[in-house]
């Protein structure tokens, strides 16, 4: 069974701070996605990474896929209250049509 563990589970920070969220597995994934979910809504895709070692930047968010394609990280620079939400990583296996979702990191950014 493929599992994706995220850490930390909860994170409360002040506006302007930096943070990193980790997504780890013992399994290899062909691609990995990060979603953000706001209260009362479904998850929305932020980014997809497909190549080991790949780094993608979206404004203040930096995503990295591990060289072995077993782990990923999300770094947020100068967090803002609008970044508040549940961050979910999701890995795609080799020959499956399914995503395996991580356990989630709930981020709260205070003004």
């Amino acid at each position, binding site marked *: 069974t493929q599992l*994706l563990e*995220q850490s930390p589970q909860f994170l409360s920070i002040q506006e302007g701070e930096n943070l990193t969220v980790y997504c780890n597995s013992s399994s290899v994934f*062909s*691609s990995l*996605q990060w979603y953000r979910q706001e209260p*009362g*809504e*479904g*998850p*929305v*895709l932020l980014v*997809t990474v*497909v190549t080991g070692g790949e780094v993608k930047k979206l404004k203040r968010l930096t995503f990295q896929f591990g060289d072995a394609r077993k782990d990923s990280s999300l770094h947020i620079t100068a967090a803002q209250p609008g970044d508040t939400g549940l961050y*979910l990583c*999701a890995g*795609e296996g080799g020959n499956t*049509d*399914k*995503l395996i*979702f*991580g*356990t*989630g990191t*709930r981020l709260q950014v205070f003004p």
Partner: protein
Amino acid sequence: NAGVTQTPKFRILKIGQSMTLQCTQDMNHNYMYWYRQDPGMGLKLIYYSVGAGITDKGEVPNGYNVSRSTTEDFPLRLELAAPSQTSVYFCASSFPGQGREQYFGPGTRLTVT
């Protein structure tokens, strides 16, 4: 495009009752999925479908059934509701292919008492 729509938004069931959660997408996606999300947790796959007439089990299929008679619709059926099925249910759809984005509906919050 409306995207993925789900009905109802909220529902309270008594133990042993049955209900169908509706899901419709208008993006002509081949793949559709049903997930459940327990409080503060990630998503667990219940069932999925790669096209009309084709369905398969996910991680947690017990107590649920699905059908896919059209590309657009993917209803989820709970036959004998149990308190363990209290959760938020999300439907999603996507095109096939590596790294494809899944588009999610707004969810149905179900309470079984």
